[in-house]
């Protein structure tokens, strides 16, 4: 079980740090592709949806959760959604590859490393990817006047990392439990796509009607989108922000144990 720590085992930090060289080479190998996915694609979204489509939408703060333009409304949600997409991308095929195709995880656990170390190092890499992608994205957007305070974007950035990590843990655990990559199709179509469209990134969830609005409020992505937006627009409702943060932190914690137990079971077969 995830909670058992053998007497002779490495600490979580030591075991994780021993994989630094590995992840550094992964980064050197993949960063060029990462640039396209992390910055270019979301920029297309901002231009197409925020600027061009947004040109047809009246910037009414009463209807846009306090945003004075559609661009300002959509940007915080887009970045939070983007964080989810990156996290899902990094914890689906790469995890299945290491378990099923290249079997590199099997060679890694033949050393003093344990599944929890592998999960932790992978999560650190996801966090690094999230930090660079969301950080640069937020910097690029700053000149567009979409942030209402100087400190809000920093907290929004933190909430984007949080929502990304929540999905990283949940999806990693899912990836360790499935046998075929076709299960990713289900995840993408029935999980990622509806979340992207209906968690309040593109329109206020009040437009969904009372029932679906509450369904949207139950999704982890909405908590991230809402938190990110409140901080960017300086419309923070602190009790709600605390609730959003607690939900996301809880998802991160659950995701961690779900991932570690999943990988332990899978690699012990």
């Amino acid at each position, binding site marked *: 079980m995830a909670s058992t720590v053998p007497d002779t085992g490495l600490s979580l930090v030591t075991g994780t740090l021993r994989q630094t060289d590995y992840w550094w080479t992964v980064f050197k190998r993949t960063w060029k592709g990462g640039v396209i996915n992390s910055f270019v694609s979301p920029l297309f979204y901002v231009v197409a949806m925020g600027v061009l489509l947004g040109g047809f939408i009246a910037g009414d703060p009463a209807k846009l959760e306090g945003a004075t333009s559609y661009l300002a409304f959509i940007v915080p949600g887009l970045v939070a959604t983007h964080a989810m997409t990156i996290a899902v991308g990094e914890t689906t095929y790469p995890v299945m590859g290491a378990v099923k195709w290249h079997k590199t995880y099997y060679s890694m656990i*033949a050393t003093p490393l*344990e599944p929890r170390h592998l999960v932790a190092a992978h999560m650190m890499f996801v966090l690094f990817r999230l930090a660079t992608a969301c950080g640069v994205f937020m910097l690029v957007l700053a000149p567009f006047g979409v942030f209402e305070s100087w400190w809000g974007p920093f907290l929004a950035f933190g909430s984007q990392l949080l929502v990304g990590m929540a999905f990283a843990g949940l999806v990693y655990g899912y990836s360790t439990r499935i046998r075929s990559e076709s299960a990713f199709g289900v995840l993408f179509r029935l999980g990622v796509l509806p979340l992207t469209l209906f968690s309040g990134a593109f329109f206020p969830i009040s437009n969904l009607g009372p029932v679906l609005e509450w369904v949207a409020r139950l999704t982890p992505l909405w908590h991230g989108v809402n938190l990110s937006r409140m901080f960017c627009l300086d419309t923070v409702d602190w009790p709600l922000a605390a609730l959003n943060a607690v939900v996301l932190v809880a998802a991160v914690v659950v995701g961690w144990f779900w991932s570690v137990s999943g990988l332990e079971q899978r690699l012990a077969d």
Partner: protein
Amino acid sequence: MPLYRVGAVTESMILARGLRKSFGDFEAVKGIDVDVRRGEAFGFLGPNGAGKSSTMRMIASVSPISGGSLQILGMDPATDGPAIRGRLGVCPQEDTLDNELNVRDNLYIYGRYFGIPKGEVNSRVDELLEFVSLTEKAKAKVEDLSGGMKRRLTIARSLVNRPDLLLLDEPTTGLDPQARHVLWDQLFRLKQAGVTLVITTHYMDEAEQLCDRLVVMDKGLIAAEGSPRQLIEEHSTREVTELRFGITDETNPHELIAEKVEDLGRLEVLPDRILVYSPDGEEVIAKVHERGLDPIGVLVRRSTLEDVFLKLTGRTLVD
């Protein structure tokens, strides 16, 4: 600096009693006793599905045991797994090399998992590349290597932590004869240097070449144990006569002819020939001719482990 240094103390490296492994209702290993001592080359022989790989994974301390007891290097894998694995080298049946990395990085990064300092890993990697004759390929991508090179790289990787105990699961399966001989030579050198080797194989010549002592596993149990010579003496005769007859119709002629020679010794009737186990092969041939039988091919040879294997595990093909 020598590639290897191992203490000369005689101690138990692997001690298993009544060891079991189950997967749901299926019992892969049904209670085996194994005792491997320092400096030995020990083999697990058996057909596919005999339980060799399951046993190896338990010894490698990555698969929990289902029953019995197991001690590796004097420690319990259930509680001391990481400490045990730090002193093991594992060469798995399937290559688990990182195809995206080059040859050198595969070794370097693996060494770092053991916590070996960077400078030290670098010098060990150079030594190991030399040892497995891959120095020239240091910068090559793994996917560009031949099967034999990949195996050698996997063996080099399993040595990066200078293990006390090296586990090799079917090390030469799928290799051409030249590559196998190169690998045997390298394993023999390690054995000479005092490394304890545990090998699974279904190649009898490999077991005879490399193993001081071995067990024959079949259906999750140990069918026999001893040195290759002991096993041959106990379970076979000094000589074996192989008789091959021409095929006249659809039926296997060897089945019919076997009835006429069954008093000459123990028989194994294979699809293409009859093996007669009798101490004197020339005598067998003379008697065969006396009975008016006319084989198209005869061969008298010494018994090998293959004969022991056929006797103990039967001739049924296991897929």
